[in-house]
């Protein structure tokens, strides 16, 4: 029970998730316990098929676990009613995707405004549209794309689209950013700039960033790294030598249903 993660911002406890195909159970997550500390930049690393994306979807409540719980900021979120989960995704967290997932019909600015529009009625939006537009422009400015605000996604490069997506994820002032392979579709250089941007948001705004990647070199850029394999969290290490370097190679979780507290406490 280490003191560093007594109050994690996001925590998964004993998550199990299987997919079924032709009535055959395909376990994807086989009991994952993981906790992400406030203000840290963490990475979930693993090969494709290791279950890292599924875990992220569960953390974002886009899907529901067969077993286990997801806690956000001291509140269980996986069993919230639909509406509550929608609000959680809309307000508490920001999600960034590998394929950006911008809406092609909307301009950059409108894409950034989308979360604000979703959470408000027509009337509510119109009442606040000046302040909301100002915030969206500030966010675009933050990612360095204010001059492209009227451009459609089809008129932008991959890196630009990912920046717009980041600006969008910041729109509703989330406490946590979930990034699913944010650089997976970008060349090294552009990916680097995206990583720098995420790091910047982490250090300057104190935003917790959880990044999912298959690339160890990217994972190394995070403060803390969790390795996944075959639906289990197999390894956990911190990248900064100053911080408890000894844990990195050795802190393994056992195969069979590790207690959540143990997984957390070791870090």
């Amino acid at each position, binding site marked *: 029970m280490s003191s560093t993660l007594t109050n994690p911002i996001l925590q998964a406890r004993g998550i199990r998730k299987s997919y079924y195909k032709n009535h055959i159970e395909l376990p994807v997550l086989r009991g994952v316990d993981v906790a992400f500390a406030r203000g840290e930049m963490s990475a979930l690393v693993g090969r494709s098929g290791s279950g890292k994306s599924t875990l992220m*979807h569960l953390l*974002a409540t*886009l*899907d529901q676990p067969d077993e286990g719980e997801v806690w956000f900021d001291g509140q269980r979120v996986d069993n919230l009613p*639909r*509406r509550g989960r*929608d*609000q*959680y*995704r*809309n*307000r508490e967290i920001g*999600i960034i*995707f590998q*394929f950006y*997932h*911008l*809406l*092609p*019909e*909307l301009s950059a600015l*409108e894409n950034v405004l*989308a*979360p604000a*529009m*979703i*959470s*408000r*009625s*027509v009337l*509510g*939006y*119109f009442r606040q549209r000046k302040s909301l537009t100002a915030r969206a422009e500030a966010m675009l400015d933050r990612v360095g794309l204010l001059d492209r605000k009227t451009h459609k996604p089809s008129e932008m490069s991959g890196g630009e689209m990912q920046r717009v997506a980041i600006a*969008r994820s910041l729109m509703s002032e989330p406490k946590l950013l979930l990034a699913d392979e944010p650089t997976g579709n970008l060349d090294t250089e552009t990916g680097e700039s995206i990583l720098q941007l995420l790091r910047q948001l982490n250090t300057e705004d104190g935003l917790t960033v959880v990044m999912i990647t298959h690339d160890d070199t990217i994972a190394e850029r995070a403060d803390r790294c969790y390795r996944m394999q075959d639906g289990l969290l197999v390894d956990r290490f911190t990248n900064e030598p100053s911080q408890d370097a000894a844990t990195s190679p050795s802190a393994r979780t056992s195969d069979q249903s590790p207690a959540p507290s143990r997984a957390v406490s070791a870090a």
Partner: protein
Amino acid sequence: MYRLLLCFRYLRTRYIALASIISVTLGVATLIVVNSVMAGFSAEMHERLHGLASDILIECHASGGMPDPDAHLAEIRRVVGDDIEGASVSVHVPSMLGIDFNGQLITRHVNLVGIDAATYDTVSHFGRYLIHPENQKQVDFNLRESGFAENRENFPASGWHYRKARVAYERALSEERARVEAMNREVEKLSSGRPTATSATSQDGLIEDNAAEDLASAGPLLGPLLPPEMNGGETGGVAAIFDPATEQYPGIILGISTCSNKLRDDAGNVRDHYYCRPGDDVRMMFPSASENPKVLNQKFTVVDLYESGMSEYDSTFAFVRLDQLQEFRGMIDPISGVKSVTTIQLKLVEGADLNAVRDALRKRFPPDTFAYSIQTWRDMQGPLLAAVRLETTILNILLFLIIAVAGFGILATFFMIVVEKTRDIGTLKALGASGSGVMSIFLSYGLLLGIVGSGVGLLGGILFVDNINEIAGVIERITGQEVFDPTVYYFTEIPTILNPFTLAWVMAGAVAIATAASVLPAMRAARMHPVTALRFE
């Protein structure tokens, strides 16, 4: 907010969806055109049907009619007086019309109606269908000098002018014939000494008849050798002084189709050919009202023509003065002086319940006691009105089926769009949009498409209806086929009525169909699992 924004964006960027609602547009436009033309037709038809037929018709089927119409009217007023605006009595009698045309006798079966000119106009639109403008204001059974249908093309000269000219011409002609005849006879006498049959009868197409006045009146045609004045001197009586150039028989108003024919000339224009016209004399044969009916044969002078536009009326009615017809048929009791009529027509006040009044009258005059048939004008024209209604209903159903078919087009297109937008739907859900929110994007998209589609259809339909006659003209020029054959229809232009209520429900129906077609795709979008949607390639 995002719903509106997105569905407007989809509307602007998805042309395939716009293509799918073209059928809605066409359906709506066609519905509007069809409905307004049908409404125009049926209003015109109602107008015409109702024009001559009064609201309620009480007919007595006995040949002698019902005696003492005033007592009947008083009784009717006692029963349903509150609803009655006007009443008129008349005598209807089947008869045969004989027209002398180019020496041939043209016969027509007509319904001879004796009307009371003063009250008849209060129960029907009789006057307005007459072709003399003065008669339209006040019916007069005396022949007018001239001025018949001045705005009508090719209408032959009519009235006293024509009558006098005709008489003069006929007299001159018969004098000339007589002269030639006399010469011929002389020649024959010289050549063979054998007398030949004169051509007197062959010249006269009119049926033989013995009435003294007819003999005289047919003057120039029947007149063997001498002008009628001189001829009249021999037969004596009233006829002796009858001069067709200055006198007339009792006036009669003929339905225009009883004495004319619509034909196309070589150039393809429709022209009316008249067998007789105001100023000519015709013969009517009808039964007397006595126990042993005899055929009466009476000459009348045509004083006007009647054109309602309903061929049924125009080809079967002839009108004369009530008192004259009663006198001819012996419908006036010689002792008491009580007159009989066969028909009582009633006009009801606006908004009165036709059927209720009819039923009240039927109760007062039960059919097992009185040989009266009491009908509303709708009863009489029931089959026709029902046919038009049925036609309109069926057309509406068919056209709505067209829009429904269009609805399936929208359904298919929407499914395509939903599939195409799968990732966007996943994105929206990841950003916190609810299933119902996503559903409403596509529902409002369908609604919007429906509004746009039927709105364009509405505009198109209204424009079409407004210019329908010009369009018919253009089609006629291109195809050479007359869209609207005036020999078949009595309308010179296509009547249309745009009923705002019809427009509203056509719009509403089309929009509802378009929206309903988007429900399934929208539900599919709403139920889409966000993870599957996000992973969709």
